[in-house]
């Protein structure tokens, strides 16, 4: 509920482990890939997604229904986790879940900038972060970017956004605002972590995530050959890259691949890198980083059973499930055959 008092990992871990058991298995994914969107919705209705499908079923249908039900269920589950946890545990979990706040803030800003209607923006929000419903309502009601900045005045995004807003007024591009939000998120993610052993494991995982994100971005830039400064997309906090090495490596694909192949992630990403060299497939590499993160998360949850790590491990697995179901539903809508969809899924 809040960051005061002592943490209660026993309670949260017990609940999360029970929920982990009800995530979809390989077998169920295989069934899902052979269903039509409406059958998928019906299948979901018989599992954990029952309440969401029933609540949204009268207003939406098909892939939209699946998409909204997934988002809403994700938000409900993660909000629940934040509700249960107390003390240091709350702080550690909130760090990670704030990425949904960052996503929501960026979505609202973009919505205001492009003049999208309130409903359009609302369906894209994922209410899984720290912001409560009242703040989100006020964000949605904001009709200018200045109003958005004002609503966020008393949050951690307040001061950086205020500075970025001045820059935005001069240039009229959103990049400074979005960068400000991202920077606050990543600073908070890795700053001031307590020093016990499970937390160090958690930190190592977060760093791996930042590294992989940097690697993905660098590869994408190197492949596209676009004239974009890679340093602008650099995320602080990782171990593998610094701003300069990333800027240098993103110009040359071969050097970049070699650099990653010689790093501490060589074991996890080795096969994907070879595939990248042979088949030139960026998707395979991105899947490999996702799968490596997920495997990392699974391992993370078993080393220190009563700590923050099983909770994070569940959060990752749940996110992955939502992404997988979304990929299946979208693939089915586009008429892809089952085996092609299966290749798109990330299952450990």
């Amino acid at each position, binding site marked *: 509920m809040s960051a005061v008092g002592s943490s209660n990992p*026993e*309670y949260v871990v*017990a*609940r999360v482990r029970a929920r982990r058991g009800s995530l979809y298995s390989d077998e169920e994914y295989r069934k899902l890939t052979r269903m039509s969107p409406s059958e998928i919705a019906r299948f979901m209705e018989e599992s954990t997604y029952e309440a969401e499908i029933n609540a949204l079923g009268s207003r939406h249908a098909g892939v939209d229904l699946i998409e909204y039900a997934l988002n809403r269920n994700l938000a409900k589950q993660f909000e629940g986790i934040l509700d249960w946890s107390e003390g240091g545990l709350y702080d550690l979990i909130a760090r990670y879940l704030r990425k949904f706040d960052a996503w929501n803030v960026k979505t609202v800003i973009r919505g205001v900038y492009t003049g999208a209607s309130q409903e359009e923006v609302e369906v894209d929000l994922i209410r899984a972060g720290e912001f409560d419903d009242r703040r989100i309502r006020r964000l949605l009601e904001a009709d200018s970017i200045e109003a958005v900045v004002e609503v966020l005045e008393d949050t951690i995004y307040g001061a950086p956004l205020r500075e970025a807003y001045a820059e935005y007024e001069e240039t009229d591009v959103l990049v400074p605002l979005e960068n400000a939000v991202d920077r606050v998120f990543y600073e908070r993610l890795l700053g001031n972590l307590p020093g016990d052993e499970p937390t160090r494991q958690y930190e190592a995982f977060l760093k791996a995530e930042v590294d992989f994100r940097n690697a993905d971005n660098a590869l994408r830039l190197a492949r596209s050959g676009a004239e974009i400064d890679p340093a602008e997309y650099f995320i602080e906090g990782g171990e593998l890259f610094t701003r300069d090495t990333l800027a240098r490596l993103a110009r040359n694909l071969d050097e970049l691949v070699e650099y990653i192949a010689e790093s501490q992630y060589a074991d996890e990403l080795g096969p994907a890198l070879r595939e990248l060299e042979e088949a030139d497939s960026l998707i395979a590499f991105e899947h490999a980083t996702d799968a490596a993160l997920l495997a990392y998360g699974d391992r993370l949850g078993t080393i220190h059973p009563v700590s923050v790590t099983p909770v994070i491990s569940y959060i990752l697995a749940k996110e992955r499930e939502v992404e997988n179901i979304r990929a299946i539903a979208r693939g089915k809508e586009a008429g892809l055959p089952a085996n092609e969809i299966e290749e798109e899924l990330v299952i450990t």
Partner: protein
Amino acid sequence: MLEATNELGNVVLQEGTLTDGEAAAALAVGLAALGAGYAERGIGSAAVGAMAEDEDLFVNGLILTVLPETLVILALVVVFLV
């Protein structure tokens, strides 16, 4: 809290004030009860968490929660030995 009990033990043993057998036995039972309580704290909250997800776990949760009580029962033997 555990550090505090350690400290207490040290003081009691080093000062050598605890020469009365019955008082020592009483202290032993008390400390055992304290340990059992501490163990039950974690198990209890995990059990309640599991029950919140699945009510069928009530019986298992209850049994596991009171298992550390055996510590107190065993410590009680000391009282009769002194």
